[in-house]
């Protein structure tokens, strides 16, 4: 039985990630929080699929239309406008998930990690991502890309000045873009790092809650 004094997995306070000073100066609310859980990819268990089904019943067209008026999704839309992303062309994470829900008629189960992220994103509205904990080194954070920096999966190098998610050694992906293939959680993943990206207007408690919902779903 677990020690009642210590928080169990997924309940521990998320670790803050680093953000480069030039980004903090421009975007004061930009931040990263991570938490690592002992679970990996593969098929979703029945309990997680049932939770997704229940979530599908609660989230319909009305909620999708009103999404832009909710404070947290609105804050992400605003931030997308601030960083040269068109939220109608590149939807924010919560809008992407809700669009998929409208297209498929339900929250379609994909795999354990994606389903857990869907739960966290829709329940709270924050931007969540996941990487294989064994494939990253050190703390995760946000910085600007340097001249001729390589991004796995791209033939050409990145231009300098792109906002990227990175560990201490390499770029893991563009901000709000998918992580590089080698860092994505797979069936063989044993530990998964969940990443929440916060922007101005998104309270810390929302990031914690999003990570907690996703971690709990991942451990179900």
């Amino acid at each position, binding site marked *: 039985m677990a020690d009642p004094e210590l928080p169990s997995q997924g309940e521990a306070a998320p670790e803050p990630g680093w953000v480069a000073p*030039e*980004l903090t*100066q*421009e975007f004061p*609310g930009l931040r990263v929080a991570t938490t690592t859980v002992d679970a990996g990819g593969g098929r979703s268990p029945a309990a997680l699929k049932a939770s997704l089904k229940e979530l599908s019943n609660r989230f319909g067209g009305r909620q999708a*239309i*009103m999404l*832009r*008026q909710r*404070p947290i999704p*609105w*804050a992400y*839309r*605003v931030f*997308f*406008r*601030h*960083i*040269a*992303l*068109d939220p*109608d*062309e590149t939807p924010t994470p919560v809008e992407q998930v809700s669009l998929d829900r409208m297209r498929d008629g339900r929250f379609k189960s994909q795999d354990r990690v994606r389903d857990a992220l869907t739960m966290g994103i829709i329940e709270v509205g924050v931007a969540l991502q996941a990487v294989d904990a064994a494939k990253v080194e050190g703390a995760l954070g946000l910085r*600007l890309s340097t001249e001729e920096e390589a991004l796995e999966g791209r033939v050409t190098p990145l*231009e300098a*000045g*792109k*906002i*990227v998610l990175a560990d201490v050694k390499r770029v893991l992906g*563009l*901000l*709000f*873009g998918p992580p590089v293939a080698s860092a994505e959680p797979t069936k063989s993943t044993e530990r998964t790092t969940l990443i929440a990206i916060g922007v*101005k*207007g*998104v*309270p810390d408690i929302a990031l914690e809650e999003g990570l907690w919902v996703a971690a709990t779903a991942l451990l179900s």
Partner: protein
Amino acid sequence: MPQELLERIEMQEVTSLPSEGSSLVPPAPPEGLGTALFERDDRSARTDLRRQIAAMESELGELFASAFPRTGLEFKVPAPGGGPRILSMNELERVRDSLATRICEVKTHLDEYGRAEEASREMIERMAQDPAGHKWLRVSNEHIGEPGCRHWHSRPRWGILGMAMGWWRVKVSSGCPLAEGPAFGRSRNRDVPPAFGRSRNKDVPPA
């Protein structure tokens, strides 16, 4: 909406020019310090532009929600593109201007929709008062900017006889047809009888 995104940075207003010799601030930055001072100014301008973009995005979001279920309205605002990066002041200005233009266009279209919808409502009233004067006219929910499939149709009672006799009336439809699912007449699981209608499996009677 979180107010912190819309907060304006308080800056002290200059009411009068400082007289020469009385001010500690030099008229121009000394050599070598200019860059740092101007960069700082740029940043505060960018912050203010970001605040304006946030306010406009909020307004566009409200218009988006209020426009439902009307279709054909364009809400897209093009972004400068080039991936996630820090935008320059010019680019932020372009985003803000595009948002302002889009808001203006959407408001104009919504006004036009509003006028047309009001005319449709008045038409329904006139139809109800004088069905024979509006023979075969049909007005739907879409014409009055409401969701659903209801429509008002001026048609004769008892078909051809009503037409000949001038027995016109306005018929209001009952709404959208119900969605058909496995519960209606068909059951995927042959052991479970369908709730309504007939079962394909003749051994299982309907519930």
